[in-house]
């Protein structure tokens, strides 16, 4: 099992728009990635609803995990995405 730790970069937290963007990217990666925030999770990263139920706030550390072919590359790009502000508007 591969893991990446990263910090939420979206100022509003991992809420509606950032959660939607992140879940879409996770689904598109084709790898079954999970995300854990503190004592919540792991939940499937490709589910926007599940990701939102983590209630992850700006600056909070989360853990991404996945296994199998392509896992490392998918985790790397998803970690970068989480660390950026996905709600800039």
């Amino acid at each position: 099992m591969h893991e990446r730790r990263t910090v939420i970069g979206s100022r509003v937290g991992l809420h509606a728009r950032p959660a939607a963007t992140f879940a879409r990217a996770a689904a598109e990666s084709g790898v079954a990635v999970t995300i854990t925030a503190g004592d919540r999770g792991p939940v499937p990263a490709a589910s926007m609803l599940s990701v939102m139920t983590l209630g992850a706030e700006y600056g909070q550390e989360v853990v991404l995990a996945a296994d199998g072919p392509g896992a490392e590359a998918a985790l790397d790009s998803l970690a970068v995405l989480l660390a950026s502000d996905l709600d800039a508007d």
Partner: protein
Amino acid sequence: MTADVGAGELLGRGVSAGLVCAPVLHLVSTAPEAGAGAPESSDQAATPEERLARAVSALDAVAQDMQQRAAAAPPAAVEVLEMTAQLARDPALASAAAVHVDRGLTAEAAVELAVEEFCTQLAGLGGYLAERDADLHDVRDRAVAHLRGVAQPSVPAPGYPFVLVARDLSPADTATLGDSEVVGILTEEGGPTSHTAILARSLGLPAIVGCPGATALAEGATVVLDGATGRVDVEPDEARRDEVRRALDAPAGPAATGPGRTRDGHHVGLLANIGTVADAERASGYDAEGVGLFRTEFLFLNRADRPGVDEQTAIYTQVLELFAGRPVTVRTLDAGSDKPIAYLPLPREDNPALGVRGYRVAALDRSHLVDQLTALARAQRATGARVRVMAPMISTAEEAAAFAETARAAGLDEVGVMIEVPAAALRAADLLDLVDFVSIGTNDLAQYTFAADRMVSGLGDLLDPWQPALLDLVAAVTSAAQAAGKPVGVCGEAASDPLLAAVLTGLGVTSLSMAPPALQAVRDQLTRLSLTMCREIASTARSATSAVAARRAALDLATSAAPV
């Protein structure tokens, strides 16, 4: 609400001006009935796998429907429609539904319970997440409608013009209104900044929101809807219908054009609010005397690096060229922890409305403000345009003095401040000693006067710009401005309400800035009233003890002064 309303009359918030007489039709609603969670015999025979397949295909149909609507929707609605589609397709919703069909529930009940579980979890997290509730319920209602084979919530198409009535409209409902037979909108809920209000104005449809009793109207009842005043006459008598017909048929006097004027010729500047270069392009085609609010946030948000002086100069030059010969009032960057800038580290705050925002950000990093002012001065020199620059969220004379000094040092000579904080309104005379003009941002001024967060739903009544306390603060500012002989504008939502525009004019406001589609209704309203009438209407509104009573009293006086 306890407005004193006649028997055949409803009163709500007019949010998009215009008069229309037509039958009402309700949005076809498919909200599940109470107790719908009970297993249904028609579905009992099927295996759990078959029931799950039905649930998933209904959710998928909703997603496809939303995706199709998004493809044809106005830009403002696209994102919400796509997010609704994504929710409908969410794998977790399908997994939750699978658990319920295994326990013997129908596809309908499984979808409902799955949605409810997520709503409960999100509600527990509060804030933004709790608001997804409405989107999820929309998904549920649509999926259940699919499963039952009944109509989707949809806009009727009866073959004649009608007024659309609903509790509230979702983005999915409103996405297709542009080419429907809807000639007016009436909703029980919603406020002046609701999605419905914004959309109605952009389509030029008369609209009233927050109207108690709207959903109880009989299907097909004829109404006269006046989007300027918020008044709905139900089953109007022949005399009233004639009146409306005449008002609509009358060559309406040639529509007023040019600078805003009261009936007796008192000038009130009519200006446009813009927020991007594309906005400026659209707005420059309207009959506006200039720009009363150019929001500059678009230059700074949504990017990782800081825009340089050259880049900013180029953008400001484009906008100034579009308004050549007309004044452009530029608001300096209005950031805050709720409008974050990637390269400007602002502390995370529990209460962004009361935190480091607006002009206060300059206290953290002044080079930002200096860059922006330098770029504006360069664009001004390049175009010869008249630039008025103002700072947001000024609270004290010290802040106003520091801003004015920085702006003048950069080479800008028409400097103002926004009045959005009660402290600034109360001491407007001190600020006006230091600057050339002030502009009142009524949305924030209401938020801070009533201690009511604009981002919290359910506080709309406190944020109503007709609140007499808010009008008192506006009056405090206008009297200071008159004493100083300096202009005072209004650039909040209030300026686009035609009747309130008359009140503001009566209070001594010298210019009104608004979304361009709202300009004509305000211009027309002003031409119907003299300055003296505007003053009387303003004084009557301020004498009222509630927002509803203020609007009502102003409406009665305006109607008797200039019958529609």
